[in-house]
């Protein structure tokens, strides 16, 4: 249990980190294509070696995942197909071949099936301590390389053409990122499986993007979200028997996304709506106030009372907006009359000046 929790936490962290790069490079679907492309590799590795040992099978997955990834690159650069087409093509082609091989293997007499279908949806329970060690080592290498080439990666993600003109080899950088994404996916196959793997890459990154405007913070947050998804997901699935871990982890990650979309202060839907309403209300009050100012300034005395009805003819107002203005000490209401306070007069005057200033 401890092994599994640590394993899924590491997996979540490395996926979140690399997922940020995939999202910003506009290659969100690359992960999906690569993970599906890994399936035939697993099947072929089993057919050739007959081994059930996960390292051999994952090595097969790595080969075919890389093959798929670089085919996609080749299709995009050599033909004029758009990247979504290339991704879709490779994804279904490789996955189709993989499924075909899986059904073929299932009919073999010798193969009591090595539980190959566990790679479809993952089975965290099969994680061994050495798997986790391996994950930890790969993740550390990843972090090191990211830190080393941080500047170059940032530049590439923002402006690839410009990166080229500065003399950086963008093919190398691109290959580096893609290889890391492939490796992260391969690491996750055993736990989360081919089908849901891309969610592990994208969900933490998408959630993290909502909270920050700094690349470094985004990558860090995505790693944190990913790790927590792993830990919480494993915890939940362990406390109910028969809940498979992979899907639960993915669901937890999706909850992070949902919360981020709604509650992020600067980009979230909730605060956007609140800001929108507040602006609209403010504007309404300002409109009424500046109209009152127009009337009041024709009199010697600011606080000369006017009938509320006069507003009606020109200016939409509600009882509520008048009361709000009174609450803010900008006007005084008495009977059917209103008058501006000194504060209200100056506020309106300044509004008015600003208005003129922006006009010309």
């Amino acid at each position, binding site marked *: 249990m401890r092994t599994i929790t640590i394993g899924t936490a590491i997996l979540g962290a490395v996926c979140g980190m690399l997922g940020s790069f995939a999202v910003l490079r506009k290659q969100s679907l690359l992960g999906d294509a690569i993970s599906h492309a890994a399936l035939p590799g697993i099947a072929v590795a089993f057919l050739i070696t007959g081994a059930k040992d996960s390292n051999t099978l994952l090595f097969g997955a790595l080969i075919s995942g890389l093959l798929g990834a670089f085919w996609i690159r080749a299709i995009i650069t050599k033909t004029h197909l758009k990247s979504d087409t290339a991704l879709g093509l490779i994804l279904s082609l490789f996955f189709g071949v993989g499924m075909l091989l899986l059904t073929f293997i299932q009919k073999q007499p010798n193969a009591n099936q090595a539980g190959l279908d566990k790679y479809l949806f993952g089975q965290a329970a099969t994680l061994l301590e050495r798997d986790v060690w391996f994950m930890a080592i790969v993740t550390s290498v990843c972090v090191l390389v990211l830190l080393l080439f941080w500047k170059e990666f*940032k530049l590439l993600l923002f*402006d690839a053409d410009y990166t*080229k*003109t*500065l003399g950086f080899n963008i093919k190398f950088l691109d290959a580096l990122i893609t290889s890391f994404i492939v490796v992260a996916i391969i690491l996750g196959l055993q736990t989360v499986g081919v089908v849901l793997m891309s969610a592990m890459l994208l969900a933490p990154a998408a959630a993290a993007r909502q909270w920050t*405007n*700094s690349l470094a*913070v985004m990558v860090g947050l995505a790693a944190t979200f990913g790790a927590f998804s792993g830990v919480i997901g494993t915890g939940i699935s362990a406390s109910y028997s028969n809940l498979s871990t992979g899907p639960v982890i993915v669901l937890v990650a999706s909850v992070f996304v949902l919360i981020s979309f709604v509650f992020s202060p600067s980009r979230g839907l909730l605060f956007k709506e609140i800001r929108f309403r507040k602006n609209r209300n403010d504007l309404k009050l300002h409109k009424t106030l500046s109209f009152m100012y127009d009337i009041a300034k024709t009199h010697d005395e600011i606080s000369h009372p006017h009938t509320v009805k006069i507003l009606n003819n020109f200016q939409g107002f509600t009882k509520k907006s008048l009361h709000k203005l009174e609450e803010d000490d900008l006007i005084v209401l008495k009977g059917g009359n209103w008058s501006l306070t000194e504060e209200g007069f100056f506020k309106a005057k300044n509004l008015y000046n600003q208005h003129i200033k922006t006009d010309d």
Partner: protein
Amino acid sequence: MEKEIAVAIDDLTVAYNYKPVLWDIDLTIPKGVLMAIVGPNGAGKSTLIKAILGIIKPIAGSVTVFGKSYKKQRHLVAYVPQKGSVDWDFPTTALDVVLMGTYGALGWIKRPGKNEKKAALEALEQVGMLPFKSRQISQLSGGQQQRIFLARALVQNAEIYFMDEPFQGVDATTEKAIINILKLLRKTGKTVIVVHHDLQTVPEYFDWVTFLNVKKIATGPVKDIFNNENLTKTYGINYQVSIQE
């Protein structure tokens, strides 16, 4: 006296899918000019710049910068891409984008330090964007984004500047500010090459011009060759523009 040549382009040809976009371009750009590249949509103006800078691979031709191949002279060349070519929702600040201009000189792995930051702040100051240095780039207006791109090129401290439509979608104030900076660059002996759309402003802004429509139509000083004959050759029959003497 013969002027020193900043950029020499020889037989440059670019094609997408057999369709030539640039055909056999020979072009020499003297040092210290402020040059406009003009031509209709699809004439290959942006492609010409990208091919010169090696962003697009030409099928034939060579480019030399101050007599040596461009690859050896990258550090002398700065590039301002079209504003629309990047995603401005990228999580970074204005200062950070300008700092990217120092990455080329730094080379692999080394991080920008105090000097680079100082240079970036100066460039921001020069384009009037210093108050916005910490602003997330998506919260800048189109004109401000263009200035940030200009600052990023300035910080490269290059000899030759290539700019792809720097006046696209910016207001009159920003356009004036940008052209003043470009004129200042020319004054200090830099060479500036600009893909330009607005023919009316060519005589006012530039001293050198290249007419391009897949082939090179003409190149030379604005006062000598910016005339209706070349405009008609480039843009088609009966193209007229009022040229102020």
